[in-house]
């Protein structure tokens, strides 16, 4: 807890998120890694897009940019290119980074700009009320797919690793693992992408039969396992690739 508050705008609490949302845990992990790596407002900028996760930036005591929907990556690239000394983080959701910002993700990973992209993947458009996103698994019932989603979920790992970039997957339940992954990404001097599986009970879990956010977290505990020295991560495996 010590130091955790130093980068948080406490005056702005409570957050806009639902109780039990995984976004808070992502902020916690991020701040703790920043603390231990001496990242502060003198050398770090955080950029986000639109959506629930997009509001993250407003709670941090850093220069933070809340951009347009899907445009977090190009803005971050502009900042990093104009001032290469800065550490630039992008924190945004799956809808923002993979759907509307998918093209930017593809090309940023090709250009290998040194930005750290943290994609909080709750598998749904949470802020707009539970529509199917590109990361929604097949056959899932959402408000826009009442008969079940007919498409496969997007393979972000393939997109990012096709250019030999850093890719890591973690969940909001495995907080220590998540911190380790963020730390690992800082060692990497290229484009880094960290997919954080998160929970959205009102938008997603409810329809799958969960009764609370807690149950969803316990499900992450059961489902996901940590893997080391893998060349490819399966859907329920956590770890990193480089």
């Amino acid at each position, binding site marked *: 807890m010590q130091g955790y508050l130093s980068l948080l705008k406490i005056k702005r609490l409570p957050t806009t998120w639902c109780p039990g949302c995984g976004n808070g845990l992502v902020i916690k992990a991020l701040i703790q890694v920043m603390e231990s790596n001496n990242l502060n407002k003198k050398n770090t900028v955080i950029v986000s897009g639109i959506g629930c996760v997009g509001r993250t930036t407003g709670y941090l005591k850093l220069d933070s940019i809340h951009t347009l929907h899907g445009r977090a990556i*190009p803005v971050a690239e502009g900042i990093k290119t104009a001032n290469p000394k800065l550490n630039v983080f992008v924190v945004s959701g799956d809808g923002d980074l993979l759907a509307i910002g998918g093209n930017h993700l593809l090309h940023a990973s090709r250009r290998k700009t040194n930005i750290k992209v943290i994609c909080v993947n709750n598998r749904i458009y949470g802020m707009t009320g539970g529509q199917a996103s590109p990361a929604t698994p097949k056959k899932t019932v959402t408000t826009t797919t009442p008969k079940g989603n007919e498409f496969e979920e997007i393979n972000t790992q393939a997109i990012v690793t096709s250019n030999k970039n850093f890719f890591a997957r973690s969940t909001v339940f495995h907080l220590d693992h998540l911190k380790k992954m963020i730390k690992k990404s800082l060692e990497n001097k290229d484009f880094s992408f960290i997919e954080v599986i998160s929970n959205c009970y009102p938008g997603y879990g409810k329809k799958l039969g969960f009764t609370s956010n807690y149950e969803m977290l316990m499900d992450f505990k059961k489902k996901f396992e940590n893997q080391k020295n893998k060349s490819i991560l399966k859907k329920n495996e956590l770890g990193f690739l480089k």
Partner: protein
Amino acid sequence: MILINGNLAVVKGAIKSGCGFFGGYPITPASSIMEEIAKDGIKLMQMEDEIASINCAIGASLSGKKAMTATSGPGFSLMQEAVGYAHMIEQPLVIVNVQRVGPATGMPTKPSQGDIMQAKYGSHGDYCPLVFYPNSVSELYEYAIKSFNCAEEAEMPVVLLSDAYLANLYETVNLDIDIGIVNRKLEPVGNGARHYTGLSHQRNSPKPQNPRQYKSFIDRIFKKTYVIAKKHADYEYTGKKDSDTLIVAYGCVSRFLSGLKKKYAFFRPIRMWPFLKKELGKIAKNYKKVVVVEMNNGQYRREVERVIRKRLYFFRVLGGEINIPKISRGIRRIKCKATSLYSK
């Protein structure tokens, strides 16, 4: 004095202003701006589309660099959301729009003036843009510098309009003109705890539910633009001033019609937006007939009509077809009956 074309003049102006970043995507007829930038050593990012181009330019501007992007009509349409964003977070930026015939892909190599209204009203919501439209290569150079200065002074994006004709027109330009350069006042990011958000905001925190705060924001950005615009109420009033006809034309059309200056009075706005209401109103009062000639289906004409408060004559030049005898014949034949709004 050097012989350069319009696009290169824009680049020379940008270099003179200390532009440090260019985000772009190739598009006819604006591509040569990016090519020249690449030669001149300004940090260039060729992005995957125009949306990314303007957004990375905004990012670079946040990082403390004077940033610009250049495009044509279709790209400008894609950029519109980010134009509104730059107005919201109040970041300086210069957008060059080398116009071509639209809508859609239209006629890519032909000049047009179809983006006059897009430059003013393109993004959603209320904002007050500053738009310049020069009509010669040396003026493009001058107004590229002025655009950067205005963007820095007003802390907002400024649009510099050009067209396919000016872009490829070669003229001699004197590069040693005496214009002061306004330097960046804003503190770059990476040095504080500020929050830049597209949400309606007040002092670094979003206030998306507060109408009073929003109203004061809108009043402020409009006032800010008008203060800067007042310093640059640029227009040209030439020709035979004692004739009974005033021709209002701008950009490349004002060049084609310069042969008519012997017979008629000419008014050419350079600062397109905010509209030169007072200036044009005062001048138009002295003339029986006011004729607007432009390369679109009457975009600026309605603004002129609204200001001079009388019906006017309108000639359109569509599809890049420049037929000067036809226009001059038309002006000669005007009797004192004004055309209705939608007639030819």
